């Protein structure tokens, strides 16, 4: 008689998505993709480890947001012909500079006009807010049970106190036996490497180390795996091979929005 409340539709859609994800992961396991397959998300692109199988196809897959599905609506990820070559931060100007390569080779100028595009973006709180929103949005890709399982696993790897800190605050500290650097492992944020200053009275942040198994969602702090799996990967790499951890992670300056401070 009356139409079903909207929340029921949402719930049904969510269940279907979860079932789809579960079936996909089982298929991936059966064919030897031991870590599973990252789930594509609406409104954001996946960025995967360069040697990941089917990386190009998965990265190219863009699911538009509901408001982008209308004809002619602007899309955030339309410019797939542009490739990010480098990005750095101009500290004094308070700007982040991105250098893109791309352009149309058919253009009379030979494509040079758009071969290099410098984008000066303000490294303001706006970017942080957008990253935060995109990170919240990525929660649709994760399974709550998987996160609880991962938190249980992490608790078994760290001391009781560190585990308690993580459950209560989403972060914990551990000092490397090798280098003496202290790391603050944080859920959904890069790990902070901190060290005492020479006089021993203060500490300084050396870098914010961002790294995700398989890959991550572009423009967010969210990885393909549930947040605590990312923390476990950081912790194990730090303990077992600290050099490799620094080498593989993106090292953000504390002032950068990506550092999550």
């Amino acid at each position, binding site marked *: 008689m009356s139409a079903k409340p909207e929340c029921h539709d949402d719930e049904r859609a969510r269940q279907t998505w979860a079932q789809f994800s579960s079936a996909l992961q089982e298929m991936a396991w059966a064919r030897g993709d031991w870590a599973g397959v990252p789930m594509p998300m609406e409104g954001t692109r996946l960025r995967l480890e360069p040697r990941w199988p089917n990386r190009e196809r998965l990265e190219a897959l863009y699911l538009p947001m509901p408001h982008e599905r209308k004809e002619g609506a602007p899309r955030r990820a339309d410019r797939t012909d542009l490739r990010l070559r480098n990005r750095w931060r101009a500290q004094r100007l308070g700007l982040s500079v991105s250098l893109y390569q791309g352009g149309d080779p058919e253009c009379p100028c030979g494509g040079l006009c758009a071969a290099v595009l410098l984008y000066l973006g303000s490294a303001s709180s706006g970017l942080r807010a957008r990253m935060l929103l995109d990170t919240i949005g990525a929660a649709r890709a994760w399974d709550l049970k998987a996160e609880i399982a991962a938190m249980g*696993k992490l608790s078994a790897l760290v001391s009781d106190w560190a585990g308690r800190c993580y459950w209560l605050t989403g972060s914990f500290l551990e000092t490397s036996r090798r280098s003496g650097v202290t790391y603050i492992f944080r859920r959904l944020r890069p790990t902070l490497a901190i060290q005492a200053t020479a006089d021993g009275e203060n500490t300084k942040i050396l870098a914010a180390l961002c790294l995700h198994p398989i890959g991550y969602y572009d423009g967010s702090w969210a990885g393909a795996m549930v947040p605590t799996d990312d923390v476990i990967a950081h912790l194990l790499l730090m303990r077992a091979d600290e050099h490799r951890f620094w080498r593989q992670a993106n090292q953000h300056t504390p002032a950068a929005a990506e550092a999550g401070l």
Partner: protein
Amino acid sequence: MKAGLEILNVGAGHRTVEFDPENEAERERIGAMITDMIKRGVSIFVEVGGSHVRVRRFLSQFHVYVIDEPEERAAREAADEARPRGTQAAALCHCGRPKRHRGAHFKAKVLAVQRTRAVAVARTAGG
């Protein structure tokens, strides 16, 4: 703590692989799985003395993980720390190449799979 292999996984958080070491077919299945993981660039970390060490190789015929001998590893790391930045290690490997050449020959230690607690992490991408 129970021995076994746990694999960080997108769908399940982590998946635990258990097997009966007495069962030859299961041993082979796990051996093939670990060999395939290493081939795909998965890092396997084993728990040794309260900390974690990365597995360098897996010998499927003996069903053992191969890791750096912990004492030698500690000594090597200490020597690295003491060495001024940008300089090469003075000591040479016994094959005549620098001490830390690709595929360097270190003293190794082996750990039986059925008695080791291990965690596997897929290839990682800097975010």
